[in-house]
């Protein structure tokens, strides 16, 4: 497992995961800025968290939803903000993985 203090973000790779097409200049600038931030957050490694449990409240009360139909949006409303639509479908360009 990577040691936080020695980590260096591969901005290009991460930006791709996030579907952000950055310019070469942005990559350089972000690399430095995020490197500084990572350096700053690396202090968390020194905290003793061995006894910390993330399991929440023992007296959790479920707040679930009953299976009753509620009104949907009228089709025109649903599509009202669509950048491109046709025949009540949201249109997108060629789907590739």
């Amino acid at each position, binding site marked *: 497992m990577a040691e936080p203090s020695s980590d260096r973000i591969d901005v290009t790779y991460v930006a791709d995961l996030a579907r952000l097409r950055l310019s070469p200049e942005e990559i350089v600038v972000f690399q430095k800025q995020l490197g500084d931030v990572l350096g700053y957050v690396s202090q968390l490694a020194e905290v003793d968290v061995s006894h910390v449990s993330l399991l929440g409240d023992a007296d959790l009360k479920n707040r679930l939803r009953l299976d009753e139909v509620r009104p949907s949006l009228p089709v025109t409303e649903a599509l009202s903000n669509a950048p491109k639509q046709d025949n009540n479908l949201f249109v997108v360009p*060629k789907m590739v993985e």
Partner: protein
Amino acid sequence: MSTTPLTAADYEVVIGLEVHCQLKTNTKMFCGCKNEFGGASNSHVCPVCLGLPGVLPVPNEEAIVKTLLTGEMLGCQIATRCKFDRKNYFYPDMPKNYQISQYDEPLCLGGAVTLDLLAYPKDAQKDPATVIDKPIRLTRIHLEEDVAKSFHFDDGTSGIDFNRAGTPLMEIVSEADMASAEEAFAYLSALKQIFVYGGVSDADMEKGQMRCDVNISIRPRGQKEYGTKCELKNLNSISGVRRAIKYEIARQIDVLGSGGTIRQETRRWDDDKGETTLMRVKEKAHDYRYFPEPDIQAVRTDHGLYDRAKERMPELPSAKKVRLTEKFGVSAYQAGVLAADAALADYFEKAAAPKPANGAAVANFLLNDFLATATGENPIPSLAPHFFGELAELSASGQINSKQAKEVFAQMFVTGRSPAVLVAELGLAQVSDVGALEAFCDQAIAANPKSVADFKAGKQNAVNALKGQVMKLSKGTANPQLVGDILVRKLSA
């Protein structure tokens, strides 16, 4: 190392199935939109399932109960506490570009699907190599939301319909315990039966209510290491799964047989062409960056949800089989056929309940007479169950004979009138009343002195002529057995 080429028999097949099942709830998993197949495009959507800014998911309680019920039916370990997680990836059919699913705290763990003989395809049921009641272990069952539906146009663009987005989906992951295409077929049939039994889903693959991805690899018999697996997609029916697996096994054997290696691939099944083709090579795994869903608090199943699921436990097919044979005296085979179809079994029970002793007779009428000619998938008689019960009682008590019963059976479907009414109308009641029969016999004896004389002279067969006369006199309703006995008694006196 053997230099002779390995044949199909030298390989062992390892199959695991990942099944997604749409739950039969009224509403979607995280919003109140109608969960319904086939609505007009984008007519069952709201800000939540469209992923608009500012919306929040609220879990459908019924979907959780149905999933717990499924886990209970399959013998799973039910989690006391479960949570949802975000599975992050971008695709146009994803309204939020993350799917709310369950990662490390699913609702159910473990469990198994037992492959009953009747779950196999008909030809495999007769195959002596078929393993009876083989258990296929499950890894887990969890809940997630379905994605939207996309339609691909000729110009390369696509249209997205979000009606399906957010539908509750149960994902069932099996261990790689299946060893043949037939076992995979049986697994899916058995699973479907469980879903239908529990009322959790109609699991119709052709409607996309049950989807299946296959993971399949082969290895030489005896080899410990698994072979490289391929994933098969685009399987649209249970028999299609069988065909696809058969093809893929042959393909993999062929590759290995000619000295090649199997590459880890996702392959698409084309049912028309009968082949799998490469979709994509599996490179490294998607980085889904799972993290706990902060918008939904953890769910406790021990505050009533699990109890509700247990209350709904139906009698499972295996238990039903046993009970039907014990209570109604039907054969094991008949019990199996009935139990395979919950609605039919239910119909049978209603028909046989007034007089369980007639169970076998009711089953005969239902399975031999009705099913033999009924059409469609999983047919149920359109008549009320008591028709069958009545018919069975009329027959078993000797009031009508078997030929008459068949006539009544046909007529009751044509006219919709009950067997008792038909018997009276058609004058079919088999007369077994000794007094009445004696009267007919006396009449016949009186009218046929020659036959009487022949019988008394030692010609035993002469009684048949008299019998025939009685049948004529009674318009065919006399109980032939009794008539014979009475005539012989009278003539021997």
